[in-house]
């Protein structure tokens, strides 16, 4: 119990740090070469990967289908803005509801088997949604062109663009980070880690493992849904790539490079990848993806804990063992 209390009191510092970094971003980010709007994208993807990390880092399930949730939510938001109202509140609510229902259905079918099966099937379901959007639903989705001609989104009559979208996204990212930390430190989070380490044993103790897995999956999809919806608010346009497997792949890469199971790591990974894309593609063009792929493979082979693990090793090597161990209790608890 003492440990839990300690964790709860230390709950605010990382959130405050993330909030401070995020909210001041429009001031310092352009100084290191980030274009206007890239900071908004970073916030949106950070939110996306936090949810992804709850599933991969804590529960141990590698989804290759999160593009499905991101994309379906994006399309729903797009359709709401186009046909119903340009106000973002109903658009976001409907998008999240639709995505949650979808996540229940997909989770029910994919989580019944092992992790390998899960990775393959989530990929297949997301690909099915992608194909469906381009074929049978092309009348609604605009087919290969994506959903274009959306009105400027509004919030209570205020048009949403520029800094307003940034602060909206940053607020969601910070709150999302806070909620995710609370989840991982709750008894529910304990169950998630127990599922990752040995779900057979957990089942024998009488725990409803499938229920916990399904619920984690849906929470994770909800993060993707909010992110997908924000993406369309940020740039009133729905690209088909939102549903494509490469979007799922990007979330995997961001999380792994940053360090799965740390929440902060994947957020950093998202920021790194988007920043790297911006800087590196200016220097070497399309080949930045090849470099990124190589970085990803190197991290998977040599540094399975990602940048967070690298940072910890660096501090250990410097002799700052005590402090490193102190601040990284969360990681150890995750492992």
């Amino acid at each position, binding site marked *: 119990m003492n440990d839990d209390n300690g964790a709860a009191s230390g709950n605010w510092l990382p959130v405050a740090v993330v909030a401070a970094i995020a909210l001041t971003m429009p001031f310092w980010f352009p100084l290191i070469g980030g274009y206007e709007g890239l900071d908004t994208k970073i916030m949106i993807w950070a939110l996306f990967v936090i949810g992804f990390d709850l599933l991969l880092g804590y529960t141990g399930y590698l989804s290759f289908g999160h593009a499905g949730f991101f994309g379906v939510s994006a399309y729903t938001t797009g359709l709401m803005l186009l046909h119903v109202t340009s106000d973002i509140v109903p658009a976001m609510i409907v998008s999240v509801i639709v995505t949650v229902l979808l996540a229940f259905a997909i989770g029910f079918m994919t989580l019944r088997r092992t992790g390998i099966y899960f990775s393959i099937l989530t990929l297949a379901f997301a690909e099915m949604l992608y194909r469906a959007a381009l074929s*049978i639903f092309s009348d609604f989705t605009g087919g290969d062109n994506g959903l274009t001609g959306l009105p400027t989104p509004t919030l209570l009559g205020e048009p949403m663009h520029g800094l307003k979208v940034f602060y909206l996204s940053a607020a969601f990212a910070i709150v999302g980070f806070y909620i995710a930390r609370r989840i991982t430190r709750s008894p529910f989070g304990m169950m998630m880690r127990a599922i990752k380490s040995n779900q057979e044993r957990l089942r024998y103790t009488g725990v409803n493992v499938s229920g916990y897995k399904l619920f984690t999956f849906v929470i994770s999809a909800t993060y993707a849904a909010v992110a997908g919806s924000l993406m369309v608010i940020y740039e009133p346009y729905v690209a088909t790539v939102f549903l494509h497997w490469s979007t799922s792949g990007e979330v995997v890469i961001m999380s792994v490079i940053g360090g799965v199971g740390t929440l902060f790591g994947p957020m950093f990974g998202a920021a790194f990848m988007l920043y790297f894309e911006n800087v590196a593609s200016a220097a070497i063009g399309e080949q930045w993806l090849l470099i990124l792929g190589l970085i990803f493979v190197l991290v998977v082979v040599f540094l399975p804990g990602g940048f967070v693990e690298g940072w910890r090793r660096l501090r250990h090597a410097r002799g700052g063992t005590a402090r490193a161990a102190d601040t990284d209790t969360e990681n150890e608890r995750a492992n």
Partner: protein
Amino acid sequence: MSGSTVNALFMQVLTGFQLGAIYMLIGLGLTLIFGTLGVVNFAHGALFMLGAYAAVTLAPQTGFALAILLVPLLLFAFGIVMERGLIRKFYDRPHTDQIMLTFGLALVIQEALKWIYGANSLPFPLPDWGNGIVRLHEYLPFLTGFVAYPKWRLILTVVSFATVIALFLLLQFTRFGLVVRAGMRDPEMLRFLGVNIQRRFAIVFGLGAAIAGVAGLFGGPVASVYPGLGMAYLVPSFLVVVIGGMGSLPGAVVAAILLGMALSFSAEYSAMQQVSVYLIAVVVLLLRPRGLLGQKGVLE
């Protein structure tokens, strides 16, 4: 049945076999590797694509006949290097790490090919002996009137099924095949018996890669050769493996034929064609989660 109905039905069935052929070869490699090494190879589509690119590059230099020999050998070597160099180190790591590694490799292969050859699809000239059409009504008496089929697609189908038969013969009637089949059943027991399964598993991986090479070589002209080819074929091939039952070779063949037929018979409703395959997978998954011919207990 009238003559034209027989013709139409025959053509659709033939097209079904042809459409399923590439997925069958990729799916066989996937299930072979999964059954023996326990690794889901997300880079298998990339290996197939590598086969197609190798064929496009080699064929004009060496002639197509020599490319038929070289491409599978090249992929075999590539597979062995991949297994010995990287995948072997991941046998003790969690499955998610193995999937991430192979996914990363797929990405690297894809982007490297894009860098070298560009993002557009490459023309894949057929050899002279593969051009043109075959007048099927001259050989098959039950067909009426004029029934023709592209020669290369027929070659692709025949070669694919010949490859499958060769693989089954290899596994059924050689000592190597015996060990591999035993390894698929119970690798631990095999290790106790003092069999060096590590070396044989490297060969199995190479074999899977070589079959993907055959698929790329003969399937390349039918598909278009561009850097997205690998992932485009990987997902339906996964479905083949899941529908057939993970680790079941006959299951992969049956599922691939089923998938080809679904593609062929839903072609009239072109919008549905894209999705029909996934619907079959959903139905199989709900009714029989281990797959059509999957063994009890495997991934259940």
